[in-house]
């Protein structure tokens, strides 16, 4: 299952917008969202949920079926999207047949995991399970609503539903599963109990209540109904509540253990992810307010924000989860700690560089649009930032290639030779 995620890695980041860039862009979004993050999430859940329930996965065969379905889906997506066979809706580009495969895959995953939880050996549900249960229920529904494959809505209604989906694929899937993984991983790494179960419940219900209606804040300045925009903006601001409770919880769990990030690499990934989560989720509500949106909308700032969420936060926690799960699933230690360290620094520095350049480019653009200068006058000023972004993208891809190589070596190296490079890191399932 884990090996299946590898092939979507190289396209995690695109370079300078060049030849056939729109096609690459479609593939990029879908590879990241459906290929890399979703597959990785499902893989992590397949490990975490049985661990938390202290029982086996309900059906291994169904799990393998999902894996094949998903990989076939991604091959299909690769072929179609790069040739421009798209539905022309952002985040929902996949064609009708592929949509159906996605839904079948998701339903199979959800059924499999729900049955695992029903068969659990422990009575009490850990908070991660709450998040996973919620996400598995929400996401297939959101996906079905969001695709609009078989309906043709008039333009603005199409946009409303499109952004309901476009934001909730993050809100009800990437965020909730990602946060669930953080809840699982951080106490495990630090070997400290979670700071407060009450806070975690508050965070969960906060997200459940306030995340779903926020979609319309993507189109605050288009002629959609004002009341819908108001709902979206207000709930965007209320999102600060769950975010801050969740992070308080993590950081209080970490207290006295901060030194561990120096030696424990997966924990370092997880903590970095929490930090980026803090940044992205304080940016978000402010961006959603009308006045900041007035200035920032349509610029690369928003692109930076999206990368901060998907790459900075959720890719990092997912990578952390990979580094945690792989030794436990295969019984082998990681091939090389040095490569993990290289992966971390390439990804971290690359991403920081990308974030900085995109945000700066966004501010330049925002000034251009707000003052009403024609794009020709300031377009060239952006070139250094595009260039920096390309460099950062290259760094991140290198990091991911190292990761893929490391995974490959770990999986396929005979045990005897693998052991020699392994340093002391406890393996305890």
């Amino acid at each position: 299952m884990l090996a299946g995620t590898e092939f979507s890695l190289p396209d995690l980041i695109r370079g300078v917008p060049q030849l056939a860039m729109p096609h690459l862009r479609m593939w990029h979004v879908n590879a990241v969202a459906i290929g890399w993050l979703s597959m990785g999430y499902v893989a992590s859940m397949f490990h975490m949920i049985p661990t938390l329930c202290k029982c086996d996965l309900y059906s291994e065969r169904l799990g393998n079926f999902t894996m094949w379905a998903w990989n076939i889906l991604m091959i299909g997506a690769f072929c179609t999207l790069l040739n421009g066979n798209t539905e022309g809706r952002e985040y929902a580009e996949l064609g009708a047949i592929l949509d159906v495969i996605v839904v079948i895959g998701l339903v199979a995953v959800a059924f499999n995991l729900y049955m695992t939880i029903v068969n659990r050996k422990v009575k009490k549900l850990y908070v991660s399970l709450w998040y996973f249960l919620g996400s598995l229920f929400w996401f297939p529904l959101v996906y079905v609503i969001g695709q609009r494959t078989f309906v043709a809505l008039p333009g603005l209604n199409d946009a409303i539903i499109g952004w309901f989906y476009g934001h909730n694929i993050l809100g009800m899937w990437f965020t909730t599963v990602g946060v669930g993984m953080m809840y699982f991983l951080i106490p495990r790494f630090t070997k400290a109990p979670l700071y407060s179960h009450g806070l975690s419940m508050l965070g969960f219900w906060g997200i459940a209540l306030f995340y779903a209606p926020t979609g319309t804040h993507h189109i605050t300045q288009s002629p959609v109904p004002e009341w819908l925009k108001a709902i979206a903006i207000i709930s965007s601001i209320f999102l600060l509540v769950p975010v801050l409770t969740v992070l308080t919880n993590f950081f209080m769990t970490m207290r006295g253990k901060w030194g561990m990030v120096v030696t424990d690499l997966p924990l370092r990934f997880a903590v970095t992810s929490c930090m980026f989560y803090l940044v992205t989720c304080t940016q978000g509500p402010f961006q959603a307010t009308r006045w900041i949106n007035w200035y920032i909308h349509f610029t690369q700032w928003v692109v930076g924000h999206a990368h901060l969420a998907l790459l900075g936060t959720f890719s990092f926690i997912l990578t952390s989860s990979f580094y945690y799960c792989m030794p436990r699933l295969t019984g082998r230690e990681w091939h090389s700690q040095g490569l993990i360290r290289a992966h971390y620094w390439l990804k971290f520095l690359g991403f920081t560089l990308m974030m900085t350049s995109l945000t700066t480019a966004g501010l330049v653009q925002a000034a251009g649009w707000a003052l009403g200068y024609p794009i020709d006058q300031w377009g060239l000023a952006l070139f250094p930032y595009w260039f920096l972004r390309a460099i950062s993208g290259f760094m991140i891809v290198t990091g991911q290639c190292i990761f893929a190589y490391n995974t490959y070596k770990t999986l396929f190296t005979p045990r005897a030779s693998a052991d020699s490079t392994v340093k002391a890191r406890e393996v305890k399932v």
Partner: protein
Amino acid sequence: MYGYRLGAIGIVTTFFIIIFSTVLMPMVLFNPKASGRGNDYKVIPLSVGDAARGRQIYVREGCFYCHTQFTRIQDRGYGPLVKEGDYVYETPHQLGTARTGPDLTNEGGRFPSQWQKAHLISPRAVKPGSIMPSFSYLSEQDMNDLVQYIQTLGNKRTVTAFVTPPDEYLPTTPQGRGLAARKTVDTASDAAANAGRGIYTQNCAACHGLEGKGNGPNAITLEKKPPNLTRDYYKQYPDEHWFYRISEGVTGTRMPRFQSVLTEEQRWYLVAYLKTLPKEHEETIDNLDQLNVAEPTRLPVLTKQVYEPHHGKE
């Protein structure tokens, strides 16, 4: 056990309440009627290319990732604001999310079709510094359809009714005839325009900018931004209209009534200068040496007659 059941019911209920309020309610309550300003691509006559097919190509090539299709209040130079009913025929919607390139809401007619086509084939040949990828791999048919689609964008949103100066500025009234009789300045002359230049620099440039593009330093602070006076629209202004605007200002904006500051003669000089402001997108060459080095760009010709937007359908 009961607690978890309650929780599960809670999740399901919350989710469906949210779906109801943000998905179903807008679908029921928000049904804008066609405003007549959006295009129904199915009924556009096939003069050169097929706009409906061009739209599919627009979607297929993913143009909407970099080009938006809605104008906002603060946008200047992108034409009239959009309304709800404009989007009735737009499925799937092409509102877009990022403006890596310019907004295309009212793109139709801004450039000739040949220009659009040349721009698709080789963007940097006609627009230096652009980062748009080349779409030269499109077939001839695809390209024509796409250009046709671009040329229909915002066609029905063009301004047809103009504000006219009040009667007392027109020769139809005694006051207007008096005004004309007192006018000693030849507003078509270079001398008058030169005289107006200084007046413009002292009184207008702070907001309107040195070239009249509405980008003077004070423009930042204004809620209603000064207009770009180099736009085509202003080239059809008669003298009386300029004079009226300068004299009485513009209601609802910070544009003052200059009749209390400038004499009648000074205002006419200013009119003469305003008429000489450059025209937007007009190619100018500063110096004769450039004439010798400038390579003429060979524009590809459309296969059928040139499609002239805004004048095509009567």
